[in-house]
């Protein structure tokens, strides 16, 4: 039972982390390698501020979202947009964007490593008073509830926004055919910035929640999560919200099963094995659609 709680919690954090990445990749075609670094850097910035100011949890979450969104949107504005503007074709832009993301990620990583000297950092105690409940023999804390609740509510909101709102529809149309979408009067550049801000905001919230859940993280945590995020996205299907939800919880479940039944040595392999198997069997993911593309 405790295992289920743990799987739900880590799955929720994977979900919040991967959701923005998935939407950005599936619609505006940006696979952001700096996503993990933004996630970590938001938590790091808040740690630096919070250790002096003593911010409360709601304030932390809101600033986390704002900071993450700001960094992500800036990355889009200063790095990815110029690359997309200059690149002659989409494939070359893809590679340039990967390296641009790598560059941004290494800047953020370097700054936080330099400041923290790679010592684990977290929020000051007293940010949240932990109360735990006993449900069917499992210890459930209010942190667990907050994490799972946020993940479900936010992903439901994003899912609704993408499928029902006018803006979300426009965004999805970019994913199908950017040129026709532009002809239909969709402002690609503005939507791309908005999407990246959304992705960054979600990862900022995820960063705050992870730090809360674990107590402390290290600057290198971002890289590990980047790989887990890939796994969740590929599992569920790029660009689909429901797929990402499914992928994130499946990944967390598989990892938890492996940790509880074996000595846990192979737990790092499961994410990669899942990516590999999924790409072999169903390259579009469990809930992915076949790509609509005309040549």
């Amino acid at each position, binding site marked *: 039972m405790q295992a289920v709680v743990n799987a739900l919690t880590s799955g929720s954090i994977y979900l919040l982390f991967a959701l923005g990445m998935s939407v950005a*990749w599936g619609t505006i075609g940006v*696979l952001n*390698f700096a996503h993990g670094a933004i996630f970590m850097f938001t938590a790091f910035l808040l740690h630096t501020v919070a250790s002096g100011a003593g911010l409360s949890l709601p304030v932390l979450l809101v600033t986390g979202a704002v900071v993450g969104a700001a960094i992500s949107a800036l990355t889009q504005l*200063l*790095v990815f947009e*110029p*690359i997309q503007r*200059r*690149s*002659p074709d989409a*494939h*070359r832009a*893809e*590679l*340039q*964007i*990967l*390296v*641009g993301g*790598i*560059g*941004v*990620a*290494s*800047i*953020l*990583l*370097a*700054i936080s*490593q*330099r400041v923290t000297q790679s010592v684990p950092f977290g929020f000051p105690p007293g940010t949240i008073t932990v109360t735990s409940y006993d449900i069917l023999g499992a210890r459930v804390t209010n942190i667990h509830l907050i994490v799972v609740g946020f993940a479900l509510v936010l992903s439901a909101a994003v899912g609704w926004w993408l499928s029902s709102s006018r803006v979300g529809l426009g965004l999805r149309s970019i994913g199908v055919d950017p040129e026709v979408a532009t002809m239909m009067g969709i402002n690609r550049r503005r939507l791309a910035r908005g999407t990246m801000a959304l992705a960054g905001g979600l990862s900022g919230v995820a960063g705050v929640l992870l730090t809360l859940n674990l107590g402390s993280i290290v600057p290198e945590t971002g*890289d590990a999560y980047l*790989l887990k995020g*890939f*796994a969740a996205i*590929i599992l569920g299907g790029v660009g689909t919200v429901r797929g990402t939800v499914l992928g994130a919880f499946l990944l967390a479940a598989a990892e938890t099963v492996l940790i509880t039944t074996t000595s846990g*040595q*192979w737990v*790092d*392999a499961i994410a*990669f*094995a899942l*990516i*590999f198997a999924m*790409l*072999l069997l169903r*390259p579009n993911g469990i809930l992915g659609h076949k790509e609509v593309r005309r*040549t």
Partner: protein
Amino acid sequence: MTSWYYANLVLIQATFVSLLTALSIQVPIRVGVFSFAGIGSYAVGAYFTAIALIRYQLPTVVAILGGMAVAVVVSYLLSLVLARLRGLYLGMATIAYVLIIAVVIVNGGEFTGGPNGLYGVVSGFQTWMLIVLAAVALALIAYSERGTLGRRIDAVREDPELAVSMGIPVVRIRRLAFVASAVLGSLAGSCAVLLRRTVTPEDVSFHLVVLMLTIIIVGGSRSWAGVALGAVIFTWLPTVLHVIEEWKTIAYGVLVTLAAVWVPDGVWGLITKGYRAVRRRGRPGPSGVDSTADAGPAEPGPLAGIAARGGEAR
């Protein structure tokens, strides 16, 4: 010169090892196959060589060729299995393959030395042999960039459908790219182990994938010369940046980002473009040809020759 050589021997070795490793990624990219399987081959080559020398006392040549054979077989199978993936999806699958190998190595127990790796690989392998091997590899790759073969490879990358219709065996060339990448990658791994005498699981990581991608894109992905430039830049940059001590890692990130944004064709692309511009200014050719070339938004793509020959192929 000799004293400089010996003082910087480690860096010189590292340059050629990363050159071979980066080539194992760049060769598939040139064919339009975005595969990181070369890093996996690096791991296979490195560990095969180390185990063959430490546990079985095999001759060095046998160890290198054995690792290469294993890497080629595995990569060939991979190319069959992953044939239907393209672009970032293929990249993702091959990254997963590399990281699975890394986890297997860590959990290999006694046989692979586990997290501690393997130590004490003794052989008569010298740095000049590495340099000769790298030179041979570069010469072969430079040859593949010229003439009919070069144009075929360009066609397979830029427009596979067109290439098929022109009678170019696209599938076979793609598989060949996987095999070539395996040869280069395992060679790099073997040489690294033979010169450094140790190998640890940390040598094969996501970080290595990221570094090689950076070398290729910043150096220039279209030509071996770009990769060579990238390998030199990223091996020596940390030493050069040492001047600014604490800001070293941050400056590194800034440089990579700037290069990704401002130098889309890589440093080598910048050099060739500059060279062409200088040559054009020096000798204004027949106005008809040159003015159309200048008026166009970009220089004619690598496909121009093929497309022209095929008439209205597109």
